Each structure stands twice: as C-alpha cells, then as structure tokens.
C-alpha cells in the first residue's frame, strides 16, 4: 500500500456492488449471482462460505474475469482500487491478474502442467508478471518464491516435475506463484479442499503468515464454516446467488441471525464436534433471539442439528446391552506388488497387522488420511479383495474360506455404501431396479413382494415412491447417497460398511444423511464401520474410533476418550487440525 492511502480514511481494496452474473444454458440465461455486495479492506482476510451452487466460486471468478465462456457479468460493478474490473478489456485485466490480484486454484493436482518442470512453471509466472528480467534474475526469484513457499532445497526441486510433488507441496507452489508478484489481493478458491486435514492446517498457517507479512488482502472461498471463521476476519455467507449474512466472522458464528446461517452453524461437523465437547448444548439456544420469529421453531435448524442427533444416538447406544462382537479383525495385512520408479518389482504394505473388533449395534470409525489403508480394510471386509494374511471373523466365523452359497450369505449380511454419489449408481438403471437388484440376485420373494420392499426402502430413506421409475441423473448427490443406502439395506443386512459415505456431500446434506444413518441404526440395530478422513464427523456418529496411519492402527479407544484424552501425537495433530478448534463459540 502506498502511504497516501494510509493517510486518507481507508478506501476498500475491493468493493463488489450489486454484482450479477448469468450463465447461458439450453433453457436461456440462468442467473448465478443475483446482486452480490462484498467489501474487503486492504490487508484484511475475508471468507466466502456456501454450499455448492451458492455462487461462491462464481463470485471469485467474476472478480478477475475468469468466468467460463458461457458466463457473463450482467450487472453491478467490481471496484478494485477504484477501477471497475468488469469494464476492463481482456488486455487490461491480464495485466492486473497475477500482478495485482493473485489466484490460487482449488485442485493442486490439476493446476500444474504435468509436462513442464516446477521451476519452468514458476519462472513462467514470474516472467509473465514482469517481476524480474533476464534468465539469472528470473531463476533467482523463482528459487526465492519456492523457498518462501516452504520447500526445502528449492534449487534442486526446481528441476522436478509435478508428479514428484505431494498435493500439499503442489498447493504450496501454487500459493507461491500466486504471491510471487506481491499482489494486493490473493484469491484462494477452496485452496485446501483436496488435501488431508493436517496438510490443510499447515498450508493455511503458511498462507496466513505470508499474507500477513506482505500485507496482502486475502479472499478465500470455502464450504467449511468452521474453517472460514477460524481463518478470516470477515465472513460472507452465500446462498442461492445472494449474500444472506456478512460481518465479523466471530460474531456471525456466535450470533447467526439469518436462518440459513443458523442451519449452517448447526450442521457444520467441525463446530458440532466442538459443541459436543463443551457439554452437548444445542445451537438453537446459542442462536439467541431469532431475527425472524418462528425460524427456529419451524424446524429449520432442528431437523439438521448434529448435536441433538449425536446426543440421541449416544443415549440409544447407552441403553442397548452389549451383545458381543459382530466383526473381529486379527492381524489383517495386505501387501500389494507394485512397480517401482525404475520398473523393478516392489511391495507395498497397505495394511499392516490391523486388529479391531466392533460390538453388535455400535459404530466404529476408522479414521485416517489418504493412503492410510482404511479403504483397503473395507474392501477386505467386504471380500472384494483377499487379505495377504490375518483373519476376519464375522460372528466368530472366518470369512476367508467362504465361497459360493456361504459367500453369498455373507454378502447378504454385510453391505457397503461408497463415497462418490455420482459413481455409486448405475446411470442406466432406474432407482427401483437399483434398489431391488440385491433382492433379485439373492432371489428374495417374488416380483410383487420385491416391489413392495423397494417402496418400503424408499420410505425408510425418505425418498418419494415415485422415484422408483426415475434414473439417477435427476437426483442430487445426497439423494443418490440415500438410494445407495436403500440398496445396501434391501437385504436386511446387520452390518453396513460406510466408506467415506458422507465425505462428498455439502454440510447440510451431510448432516441429514448422518441423522438418517443414526435413525436407521436405531431402528434396525445395525453395526456400522464408518470410514472417514474427517474426525469432526466421527464425533457425532461413532462410539469407538481407530486411527490409522501408514497401514497401522495407531490409536483405538472410545470416541470420548480419543477426543478428550488422545494418547498419540498423531491423533492430537488430527484433532488440532479440525477447523474451528480454536475459536470460542460462545455456547
């Protein structure tokens, strides 16, 4: 910032006024932003929070004119340092992009070109922004950028290619590139959504230090309210292309006034897990006097409040007598043969002597970061893959030798729900057939009774019966996940393996599905193995937790114990990385 600006009363660095953006679709122009106002002062941090489709990314892209070809700014203005960016020519905006406004994209895996070395790409950015001239000068600056990004031996790493970097490292590089020209504003679009929580924490700490040191204002976009409140001074909550609430983040979190914000606060697992920690208090009480009479009683918050859902669950489990172990896993090991970097055969121990047991009617969460081997455990339990050694006992029976009829019986008792709602349903089979297929395969009942069972299952997962004749493409992610749950339940299993079953969903939908899972467990006395990378969700759904790291279980205990008294350093690190862990909630 120049000194003159410090003297005059602060002028906003970025002022978005009544911004409207529309996208061209087959059904004409569809409005994505319907009058968005955002003000960001120099050197401050602002977070835009919202679900997918709320317009948060569109806002960020509209600022620097990176809207896809079908999108257009149809009204309002984007004042940056007094200039209206929406009126600039392509050339003028290119000059501002990179030099004055840096951008960190969402997916570090897709945003570095795999055929060029890291150094080349950093140098390219430096040259394009005119930060340095001449080969030696540019190279020196590039090394400096990578060093600032936290890469050790940066000059060696310059010659490496993106695939030799981990996701976190790549994101550091992208942040470094975004900040290389010391811009006045850095826009980060979900900069850590694709990363593990512990990496996310380090990256955000790093980003915070860098922007603070250089006085860069930061606008970042996230779907995680806890994360936003922890990292930003100002919060903007978006819903359906509009800003529904904005202001100081702590105040919004402690005193959410718009019913939508109240919903979000109630449903965010990171916040819920904290509230449970601090004495299981309901958010409705914390929301204070609702601005709109009736908003709280109308059930808008109640139906998706994670805390009350968790409390109900805990109570239910407490009342069920212990009934022995449904699943017992002893010394389970899986070794993969992989090809090494030089084409030589290598082995990878994906799962290393894992032991655990799950009591009937309870939920055990298997928590770990990507590559920890948790999904491999699930696949071995489901007999989708064979174990290298060790044994899996279901009700005391070793499953490894099962085949034919007996294997089919095992499958009938244990069903999975997978992560990707868009991949877990066959797009060409209608919902009724998808849910009814297991009945068909196991020859349960006749056509009529199968049909009745499909309807019953649709009722159970709260989907209308009319969906039976429809195809998955008409459903949202959460609804698809309900269908996947219905399919898993069709054979009346007593065990369900939930492999990241809620990880891909928006928080409100996630809260709904978590609640549904709790209700189903109570109703059908199901045993859950809940696999996730998100410890915050664990807090509301699981009775016991096993933490996996590098193929091994490093800590296993009851949920209360793990959260209240973690023994291992790694578990502490995971718990600390839950966003929003350090903000006073005022509840």
């Amino acid at each position, binding site marked *: 910032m120049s000194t003159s600006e410090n003297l005059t009363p602060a002028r906003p660095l970025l002022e978005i006024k009544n911004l409207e953006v529309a996208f061209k679709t*087959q059904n004409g122009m569809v409005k994505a932003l319907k009058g968005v106002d955002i003000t960001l002062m120099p050197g401050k941090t602002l977070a835009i929070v919202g679900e997918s489709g709320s317009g948060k990314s569109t806002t960020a892209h509209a600022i620097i004119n990176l809207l896809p070809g079908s999108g257009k700014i149809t009204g309002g203005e984007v004042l940056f340092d007094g200039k209206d960016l929406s009126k600039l020519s392509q050339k003028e905006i290119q000059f501002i992009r990179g030099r004055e406004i840096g951008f960190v994209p969402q997916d570090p895996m897709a945003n570095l070109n795999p055929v060029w070395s890291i150094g080349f790409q950093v140098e390219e950015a430096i040259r394009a922004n005119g930060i340095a001239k001449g080969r030696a000068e540019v190279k020196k600056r590039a090394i400096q950028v990578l060093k600032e990004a936290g890469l050790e031996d940066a000059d060696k790493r310059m010659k490496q290619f993106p695939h030799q970097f981990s996701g976190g490292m790549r994101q550091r590089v992208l942040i470094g590139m975004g900040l290389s020209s010391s811009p006045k504003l850095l826009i980060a679009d979900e900069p850590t959504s694709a990363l593990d929580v512990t990496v996310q924490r380090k990256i955000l700490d790093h980003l915070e230090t860098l922007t603070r040191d250089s006085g860069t204002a930061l606008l970042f976009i996230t779907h995680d309210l806890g994360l936003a409140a922890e990292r930003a001074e100002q919060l903007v909550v978006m819903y359906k292309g509009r800003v529904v609430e904005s202001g*100081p983040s702590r105040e919004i979190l402690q005193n959410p006034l718009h019913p939508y914000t109240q919903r979000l606060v109630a449903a965010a697992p990171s916040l819920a897990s904290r509230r449970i920690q601090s004495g299981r208090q309901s958010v409705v009480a914390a929301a204070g006097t609702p601005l709109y009479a009736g908003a709280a009683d109308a059930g808008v918050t109640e139906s998706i409040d994670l805390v009350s859902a968790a409390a109900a669950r805990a109570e239910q489990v407490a009342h069920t007598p212990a009934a022995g172990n449904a699943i017992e896993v002893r010394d389970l090991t899986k070794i993969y043969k992989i090809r090494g970097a030089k084409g030589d055969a290598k082995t990878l121990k994906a799962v290393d002597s894992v032991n655990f047991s799950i009591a009937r009617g309870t939920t055990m969460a298997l928590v770990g970061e990507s590559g920890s081997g948790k999904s491999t455990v699930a696949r071995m339990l489901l007999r989708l893959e064979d174990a290298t050694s060790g044994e899996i006992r279901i009700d005391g029976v070793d499953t490894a030798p099962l085949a034919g009829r007996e294997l089919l019986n095992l499958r009938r008792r244990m069903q999975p729900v997978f992560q990707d709602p868009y991949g877990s349903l066959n797009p060409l089979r209608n919902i009724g057939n998808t849910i009814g297929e297991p009945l068909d395969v196991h020859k349960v009942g006749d056509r009529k009774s199968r049909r009745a069972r499909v309807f019953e299952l649709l009722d159970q997962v709260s989907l209308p019966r009319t969906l039976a004749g429809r195809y998955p493409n008409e459903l949202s992610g959460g609804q698809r996940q309900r269908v996947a749950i219905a399919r898993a339940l069709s054979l009346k299993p007593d065990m369900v393996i939930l492999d990241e079953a809620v990880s891909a969903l928006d928080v*409100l939908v996630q809260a709904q599905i978590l609640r549904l899972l709790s209700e189903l467990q109570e109703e059908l006395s199901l045993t859950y193995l809940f696999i996730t990378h998100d410890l915050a969700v664990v807090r509301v759904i699981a009775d016991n937790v096993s933490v996996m790291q590098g193929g091994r279980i490093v800590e296993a205990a009851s949920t209360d114990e793990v959260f209240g008294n973690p023994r291992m350093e790694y578990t502490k690190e995971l718990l600390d990385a839950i966003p929003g862990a350090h903000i006073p909630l005022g509840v």
Partner: protein
Amino acid sequence: MSNTPIDTVPEKIPERSPDHFVAALDDTPLVDVDSVTVGEKPSNLWIDAWRDLRRRPTFWISLVVILFIAVVAIFPTLFTQVLPDQNCSLDNSNAGPAAGHPFGFTKQGCDIFSRTVHGASTSLSVGFIVILLTTVLGILFGAFAGFYGGWLDSLLSRIGDIFFSIPYILAAIVVMSVLFAYRNVFVLSLAIGIFAWPSTARVLRAEILRVKNSDFVMAATAVGLTRFRILMRHVLPNSIAPVIAITTISLAGAIVAEASLSFLGVGLPPTFMSWGNDISQAQSDLRTNPQTLIIPSLALSITVFAFIIIGELIRDALDPKARAQR
C-alpha cells in the same frame, strides 16, 4: 481437547455490530435441504439423447434419406421398370436422356438411372454386413479384454493390434485378389470387416476400463453378482454409447470401401450391380457422357453423407458434455 482449554461461555450474546449485515428473509426464501425435484418424465442418457436428436432437423433429414435409400435398395422396381442389365442395346451407347430413361445410357447402352437404383442394395448390404461383423467382433474382443484384463487382455489386444496394423483397404485388396474366383457381396464384406473391427474393439475396451472401476460395479460385486452378469448388466450398457456412434460412421466407411475395391477391379465382378462398378466403368466416358459417372457418384455421396451426419449427431447426443456446450 486436552491441550486447548474449552472456552468459557460469554456472559451475554454480543451486540450486533454495524457491519453485520443480514439479508431480509423475503429475498432468499429458504427451501428444504435437498428436497426432491423430479422432471415430468423419466430421463437417462438414452432418453435424453433421443430428446436431443428429436429436436434436430438434420437428424430427421438424414434419417429420411437413409430410409429412402433403404426402400430403394429393397424395392428397386418401385422406382424403375427398366431392367438394369438386360435389354441393354449398343444402339443406345452413351445416348442422352430419352423418354423413360431420365439420365440416358451407359456405354453398354444400359439405363443409368435403373443401374443406380439397383446398385443401392449392394452398397447397403455391404455396409450392414460389415458393421454387423465389426460390432460383434469388436464387442467380443473389446469387452472381454477390457473387463477381464490380465493375460486375456494381452492376448486379445495383441490380436487386435495385428489386424489394426494392416490398413483394411490394403488387406481387403490382398484378400479379394486371392479369392478372386469367389467374389460376391458376402466375401467382400468379410474381407473388409475382418480388418475393420479392431477400432471398435479399442474404443469399447477403453470405455470398459473406465466404467469397470465405478463404485456401482463394486457395489454389484458386494451384492454377489457374478463377474459375467456385472459385465452384461452394468458395464457393457454404460460403455456402448461410443460404439454406436463409431458404428454409424464406419458403415459409411464400409460403403466407400466397397466402391473403392470395385473401382480398383478387386471388388465385385462386373456382373454385379454396384455403384463402385458403375463408377469404375464410367471413367473412360467422363468427358463425353459425364452423367454415367455423376449419377452413381451422387448416390454414393448422399448415402455416405447421410450416415456420417447421423453418426455425428448420435455421438453428440450421447455425450452430455458436448450437449451442454451447444
């Protein structure tokens, strides 16, 4: 958390600060979380593709052209009473149009229009027999190689590569030269089809590799479906769309191949009524009697064009991304 003290509850809810903005509820009415909204009619890839095609005039024009040519091929006598290869009189050699002979006569004194009408069935037969062959072989090789993988994939893919490495026109020339005495529509189609299937197999194999790693395949395995049933019920139906598009276009290719081979003299014997043969025989009379060349060439081009257009449209309609971009 053990290492972070739980923050105490503030005494009262903080005052609302001046920059805490809240939108009026009327501006953004809250809807139920994840409420189900379904269209009036069911839709999936095929239904959507059909809806998309139905709205395109070019689709209907191409379809009408193709159906018309099919009718011509099956019932040539509906369109001309003149016999194409008998009653040819050298008196009419290269004569111009006359009553009942709208385009005149060939060098042999045969009616050009009648020959073109009667030639349609050859072209279409070759086209359809070839795609039947390439589709059956392509699906067998592509599906098994892609789905079962391992040594079967290596074996089937290498066999495909061998056939793929030989240009099919060249291969067909060699085969037809060897089988010179047995030239007929079926042998010719076989010669083309045997070398044309690997591209279908490759497209299908790639698609199968993509689909077989879907979660719904894993879910089906966990339910207890056999591998073969998973292939037939879940994987193949989701992989077949690009095959259909490529098939329509390769049908056009097969018709062209027949014409090319006949033109080169290794296709069908001259006694067969075929556009390729007619074009071949017309080349010497191009300057004196151009319609002997123009009429069968036009028929060939229109047919090929119609199939290519319809193939492109189907390919677009079956690709939701391409559809969204239009």
